[in-house]
């Protein structure tokens, strides 16, 4: 199976051919994976310029797609994202690769579990966290057709199968605690809860958060969020959605720590309690 990243490069190359409104702005990363094209702009290792150029293209009616490693898309040019896109009221599609710890062996500099929380602090962003290359294709293709501000967080972690449908999708409608798995955490969440009286729902688009769908799907008071980025990133959204209902929330995700470890993504997943055993242990403790 192709990775999300491989699928993205193919889709991006096709979009450049098919849609004259589309332009790509890269900062070295990914350039070697793409055929040359007059609207594929490589600005070199200049991430502030990458966002500014995207804004200028959008100002002229283009649909810019920006791509780099997660920390270099979201964190290094954060003020450019806030002002050149948000404050100028211009749109772009930012597509990151690397997620929280795909580059586990590269250490902290290439790990960005705080990206979604940082971007979600700015108004007007749609944030997609696909859990499968097919979901990436659907979300990316749709994003190209718009003119809004979209962030797509690709990961090398994927679920075994894509989930069809948008927004909050209930996969196991059971009466117990309501577990909401975001993006590539679904596989481990399903494995962790298979034999438990636990409802499981899936979400590939955490922003805007599906308040109404959560209220409709929820049967009891217990909510468990499983997010592949900083733990608690969507806790405030759940709190707002359920503000008039007594509820309890367990928010699982990457721990907010200066995490000085290399190794494999699987080791990081385990260390943050995001593998099936970790999710199950946290869940059982929460409901006991």
């Amino acid at each position: 199976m192709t990775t999300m990243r491989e699928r993205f490069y193919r889709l991006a190359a096709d979009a450049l051919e098919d849609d004259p409104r589309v332009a790509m702005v890269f900062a070295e990363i990914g350039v070697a994976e793409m055929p040359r094209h007059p609207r594929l702009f490589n600005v070199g290792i200049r991430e502030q310029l990458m966002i500014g150029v995207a804004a200028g293209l959008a100002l002229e009616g283009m649909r810019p797609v920006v791509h780099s490693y997660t920390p270099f898309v979201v964190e290094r040019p954060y003020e450019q994202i806030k002002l050149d896109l948000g404050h100028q009221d211009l749109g772009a599609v930012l597509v990151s690769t690397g997620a929280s710890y795909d580059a586990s062996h590269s250490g902290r500099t290439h790990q960005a579990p705080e990206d979604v929380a940082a971007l979600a602090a700015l108004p007007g962003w749609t944030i997609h966290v696909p859990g499968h290359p097919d979901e990436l294709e659907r979300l990316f293709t749709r994003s190209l057709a718009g003119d809004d501000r979209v962030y797509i967080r690709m990961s090398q972690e994927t679920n075994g199968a894509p989930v069809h449908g948008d927004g909050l999708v209930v996969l196991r409608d059971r009466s117990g605690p309501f577990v909401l798995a975001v993006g590539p955490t679904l596989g481990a969440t399903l494995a962790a809860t298979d034999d438990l009286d636990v409802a499981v729902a899936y979400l590939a688009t955490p922003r805007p958060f599906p308040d109404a769908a959560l209220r409709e799907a929820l049967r009891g008071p217990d909510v468990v969020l499983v997010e592949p980025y900083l733990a608690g990133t969507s806790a405030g959204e759940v709190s707002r959605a359920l503000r008039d209902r007594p509820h309890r929330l367990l928010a699982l995700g990457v721990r907010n720590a200066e995490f000085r470890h290399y190794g494999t993504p699987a080791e990081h997943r385990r260390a943050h309690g995001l593998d099936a055993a970790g999710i199950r242990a946290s869940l059982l403790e929460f409901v006991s």
Partner: protein
Amino acid sequence: MTPLGHGDLPELLTLLTGDEKHDWSSLSTLDVLWVLYDRVLEPADRFLLSKGHGPTAYYAVLAAKGLIPVEDLTGFGGFDSPLGHHPDRVLVPGVEISSGSLGHGLPIAVGAALTGRRVFCLVGDGELDEGSNWEAVQWAGRIGLAALTAIVVDNHSSTYHWPGGIEKRFELEGWTSAHVDGRDHDALERAFTARTAAAPHAVVAEVLR
């Protein structure tokens, strides 16, 4: 609305600030802006004011050219005024980018110029302290982005100065450049319009305080 002339600028500036002073020469960008809007900019061009601090000269020129209503000037800086101490393009149709934070305009100008649009971007010599400008200067020079003109209003406000000259830094990156008196309208016009190579162009407009 009938467009106003250069002689109307003091009155427009007084509307903005309430200040009755007659010598507006302290505004470093006033002559550059006037020459651009009066003699250089075509309807299809874009002008991006990156240096958004102290935008009174900008608003006065926009009002003189009928791009914003003169009556808006009196509310300058008020809660519901479209005209703030840093311009907001969403509030003011005649303003092409929102600015205030330094070092954002030139990278945006590069992106706009990639489409072939003729783009003029005004920055300050102090603003050039921000490294984001140099990302734009380097790349625009290397790719020969001829649709782009950067105007550096140099009023010597950068604490650490630019030893050897600002224009030398642009030239090294592949730009053409001119250095002119920022009060001399004819010299400014020549510098903005005389292009000699398929390269981005930098005009350093020196304005002594």
